[in-house]
């Protein structure tokens, strides 16, 4: 039983359905067969009683004239005629009012003048029925343990009885007739099963399939992200539909949570990196300034040999490079700067447009700024330049780059898209780290700097894949409260 209960709903629902259908059909068939049994009994009784009625009148006349032979001929002919019809006549007897046989179609078994009750158990029982029967109507008697059934018809007219006609039928006809009718019933049952069972199986499978799909995906949760559910799989709003909605909600929540966690981890990492970089930069900057000043002083000493001059120059260039690098790492967005004006945006466009000339790019530009924005223009320009330069570098030849600048909900929104190579999730996760480059010639500090500036201005930067294979960088910086 447990094995059955542990089965998948894919099998359990159709199996339960099939079981119920089979039980229903069996009950219906059994009822039908039961009815058939009674119907056959009734039909045979009616047939036999009809035969009795048809003989009654002519037998009355024959008995009235004491014409034994005619009575015999009448019942013999009837028994032969009866045998060819549905009822199987085995014997026909005529008994007088003293229950003695007058005529019989089987005179050897039931001889003339023999007492009916002495002709065996069946006839003894029949004698009882005949004596108790006061009506002129025919009646059919089924004796439970007998191989025969009997119909008795009083041979009477105007309440004058000359005797009783007893028609003895073999029950042998009963079984084939019953079997024939029962077979029809079973055939109908089988046809119903043939129609209902496949339908039930299909319906059961169809019912179970969404549940099975859901269960399989639920089982995957925690191990890996399950495949998306086909939204057309179950479109109804019953309990299963609600379960689907709940599952989708749960999955979305889990994904959002994971995404948030990853962002936090990423921000933390970038913050730590920023602190480290700033710390190192400061530590380097102090001795570096001293070294640069010493080198500068030394450079102006005239008694140094050309070789020394050359070496000093070499050290100076090296130190300057260190200074540049450190300066790049150490992004300080706290410097005071004038507010961003619409003109700044146009400057950046003018600056950038020549750079895209080689690739013959199509740049879409949309800036809805009409007035000054209380954000440091230097850093916003820096952000715009960095994002646009990256986009131009990434864009395909004759590709597209678009830039939207807008103010929404007290935030400056900068959105830059390009149709270049798509970044994979692994690349995206390391995008804002220093010295992370996916293009030749880049030092990998552009997005780092952008990230640092955006973060320091209290904003966010996000990367997403847009439809039509576009990569989009969106920066959102809140405007300082006035």
């Amino acid at each position, binding site marked *: 039983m447990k094995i059955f209960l542990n089965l998948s709903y894919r099998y359990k629902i159709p199996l339960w359905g099939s079981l119920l259908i089979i039980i229903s059909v069996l009950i219906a068939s059994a009822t039908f067969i039961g009815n058939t049994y009674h119907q056959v009994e009734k039909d045979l009784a009616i047939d036999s009683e009809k035969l009795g009625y048809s003989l009654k009148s002519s037998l009355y006349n024959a008995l009235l004239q*004491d*014409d*034994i*032979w005619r009575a*015999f001929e009448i019942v013999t002919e009837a028994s032969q005629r009866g045998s060819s019809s549905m009822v199987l006549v085995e014997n026909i007897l005529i008994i007088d009012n003293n229950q003695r046989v007058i*005529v*019989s179609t089987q*005179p*050897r078994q039931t*001889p*003339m*003048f023999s007492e009916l009750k002495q002709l065996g158990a069946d006839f003894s029982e029949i004698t009882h029925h005949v004596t108790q029967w006061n009506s002129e109507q025919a009646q059919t008697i089924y004796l439970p343990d007998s191989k025969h059934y009997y119909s008795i018809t009083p041979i009477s007219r105007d309440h004058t009885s000359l005797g009783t006609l007893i028609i003895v039928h073999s029950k042998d006809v009963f079984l084939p007739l019953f079997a024939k009718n029962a077979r029809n019933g079973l055939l109908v049952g089988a046809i119903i099963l043939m129609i209902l069972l496949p339908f039930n199986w299909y319906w059961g499978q169809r019912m179970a399939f969404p549940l099975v799909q859901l269960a399989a995906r639920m089982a995957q949760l925690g191990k890996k992200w399950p495949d998306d559910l086909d939204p057309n799989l179950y479109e109804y709003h019953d309990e299963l539909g609600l379960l689907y909605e709940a599952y989708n909600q749960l999955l979305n929540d889990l994904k959002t949570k994971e995404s948030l966690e990853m962002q936090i981890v990423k921000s933390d990492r970038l913050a730590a990196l920023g602190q480290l970089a700033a710390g190192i930069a400061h530590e380097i900057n102090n001795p570096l300034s001293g070294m640069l000043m010493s080198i500068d002083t030394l450079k102006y000493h005239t008694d140094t040999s050309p070789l020394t001059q050359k070496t000093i120059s070499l050290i100076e260039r090296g130190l300057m490079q260190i200074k540049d690098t450190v300066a790049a790492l150490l992004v300080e967005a706290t410097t005071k700067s004038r507010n961003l004006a619409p003109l700044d945006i146009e400057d950046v466009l003018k600056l950038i447009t020549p750079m895209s000339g080689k690739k013959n790019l199509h740049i879409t530009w949309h800036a809805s700024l009409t007035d000054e924005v209380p954000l440091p223009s230097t850093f916003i320009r820096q952000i715009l330049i960095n994002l646009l330069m990256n986009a131009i570098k990434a864009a395909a030849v004759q590709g597209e780059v678009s830039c939207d600048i807008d103010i929404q909900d007290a935030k400056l929104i900068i959105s830059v898209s390009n149709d270049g190579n798509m970044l994979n999730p692994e690349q995206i996760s390391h995008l804002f780290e220093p010295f992370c480059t996916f293009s030749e010639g880049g030092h990998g500090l552009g997005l780092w700097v952008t990230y640092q500036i955006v973060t320091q201005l209290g904003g966010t930067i996000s990367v997403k894949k847009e439809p039509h294979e576009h990569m989009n960088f969106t920066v959102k910086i809140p405007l300082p409260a006035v």
Partner: protein
Amino acid sequence: MKTLTHLILACTLLFSAVIAQAESFKLGITSATARGQYALLEEWRDYLQIKLDHPVEFVFRDSYLELLDLMKQKKLDFAWVSSPAYLENEQKMSLLVTPVYKGHPFDHAYLIVPATDQRTQSLFNLKNKVFAYVDPDSSTGYLDPKHQLKLAGKNPERFFKKAFFTRDEQKIVAAVAIGLADAGSMSGFAWDTLALSRPDITAQTRVVSKSAAYGFPPVIVRNTLSQTDSRKMQRVLLDMKNDVDGLKLLQRLNIEGFILADKKLYEGVQRMMIHMGDL
């Protein structure tokens, strides 16, 4: 003129046909005599029509009594009847011919029992049994056994527990064979004839005894019929054995021919009837 001649001719023919129809010879036969051979009887009728050059009609009735009634009403001209039926009405009817069977114009009464009954040796063993007769006017199928019982000092009405009539010789055989009757009396000629065509049926019965010879059931004619017609029919019947077609029919009827009927043939039956108080 020609049309008128045709019209007169047609009317004459139609009239003569009506006359012929009205004057056909009617011969009565009981089912006891017919024994179910209606096709054969039809051929015999056709034969008689040709030989007589006169329409012949066979009239069938169940009992001799009915035939005699028809004769008295002149609805029958001839009848093939049992000898008691003739003897009871000899004032109004005359003997025409008598069939010849096995060289003699005689028949016997057969007492038959079921073949399974090997004990019955005579009629007197059948006390309180069920007995089957042919017809109350039959010599072999009724009168003979009753007469025997009376001769033995027994009451024929009470000797058997039950007696009934089958009206047909063959049905006596059937009644006895299936056991409806314990015994029956019938024409020996009828039993022998049936034994030729259906030995399987007669084999189910056993002939216990044969009676003395009685005159074979005769063909009689009503006295009111013209001598000419009567003679004409008599001649054709007597000549049947001299004719190929007639002989074939006689063979199928299982008789050898007809001879002139003699009243003496029926004296035995007459004595019996007188003894029984029937005459």
